[in-house]
């Protein structure tokens, strides 16, 4: 098998992963940052890093792609918040940043922040599983795979988190 063929195979694999996960990662970033542009940039950066890893022949590192992609996205979100702390809103607006871009996005962001407020009020270990189970409607198996925990533990966390979530409802 020549190099060209291998590169083609890697590209196909990468694009399949992109099509499969880009929307989920976009929603995760949107949910965490409450900003569509930032979410878009973070998704792009996530897949840039994935492509770099895969195309440089380190695709063995991506044995569990879902887990890997989520991990990159999470790290980027953490980095984003670290950077954000150092930049004021005024500075961002001077650079052309619009916190509320349109009517539709304003509506969307209200819904997002509503969800975020409820889920973020849960204990930390339940936030991810509840988000994945009730927002993304993922299967327990996939949640366990992404978080690198056993299915049993994921089920327990979902069950407890659900109970806590019910307490938040009026």
């Amino acid at each position, binding site marked *: 098998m020549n190099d060209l063929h291998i590169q083609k195979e890697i590209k196909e694999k990468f694009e399949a992963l*992109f099509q499969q996960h*880009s*929307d989920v990662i976009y929603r995760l970033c949107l949910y965490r940052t409450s900003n569509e542009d930032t979410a878009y940039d973070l*998704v*792009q950066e996530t897949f840039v890093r994935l492509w*770099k890893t895969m195309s440089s022949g380190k695709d063995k590192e991506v044995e569990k792609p879902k887990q890997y992609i989520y991990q990159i996205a999470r790290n980027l979100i953490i980095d984003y918040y670290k950077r954000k702390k150092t930049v004021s809103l005024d500075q961002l607006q001077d650079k052309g940043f619009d916190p509320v871009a349109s009517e539709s996005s304003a509506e*969307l962001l209200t819904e997002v922040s509503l969800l975020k*407020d409820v889920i973020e009020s849960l204990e930390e270990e339940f936030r991810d599983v509840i988000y994945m189970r009730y927002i993304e409607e993922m299967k327990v198996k996939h949640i366990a795979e992404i978080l690198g925990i056993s299915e049993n533990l994921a089920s327990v966390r979902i069950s407890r988190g659900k109970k806590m979530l019910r307490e938040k409802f009026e």
Partner: protein
Amino acid sequence: MKISKEQFNTAQKTLSKKGLSYSQKNTMLSSIYAQNSEIEKGPVVSPLSSYFMFFQTKSFAVLTMILLVVSGTSYASAQSLPGDLLYSVKINALEPIVLVLQKDSKSKDEYRIILLQKRIDELEKLVKRNGIKKESEIESSKATQKNVKVLEKSAVFTEEGQNIKISNQIEKYNSLVSSDFEIKTSIHKNSDDTVGREIKQTNESGMKEKKAH
């Protein structure tokens, strides 16, 4: 923070519908590939120069290794005594190299006299350590004989037919080794010695010829 279940479900539906459009995905993919190709381009370095850089680094490492090994071996052999593993390196490689580097025959003879003194020092060290073994005597004797034979040819004698400096050294050497390994040479003998006289005469006639010229 309290919300109704309906509010939660509505918000969940709104968010879950959200995703990247087809065109957004295509733009993003193109941008990802473009970014990566920019990284791949990097600084323009010709493949030949990178080969040489690799070669230089590799050869530098090899050269350093060789230097370390050679200098380490040289140092160890220079410190070795008769009977040691590296003693033959000292006698057959190091000392001949230094001898060759001497500029003229006078300097060469002076260096041979230094070597003679070194052989004596080695034997003295062995005496202090554990005494001199037979193998050590053989090695030392061979090394000494080699230099003394050459010194005999070019020796300069006193009026009495004696080369005092070398004579003393040879006597000292012989006092350290057993009788089988004593250096038997005409250099340290007195004026009655035939070889000594012959050399003296040769030297004297040489001087006379030079004066006549």
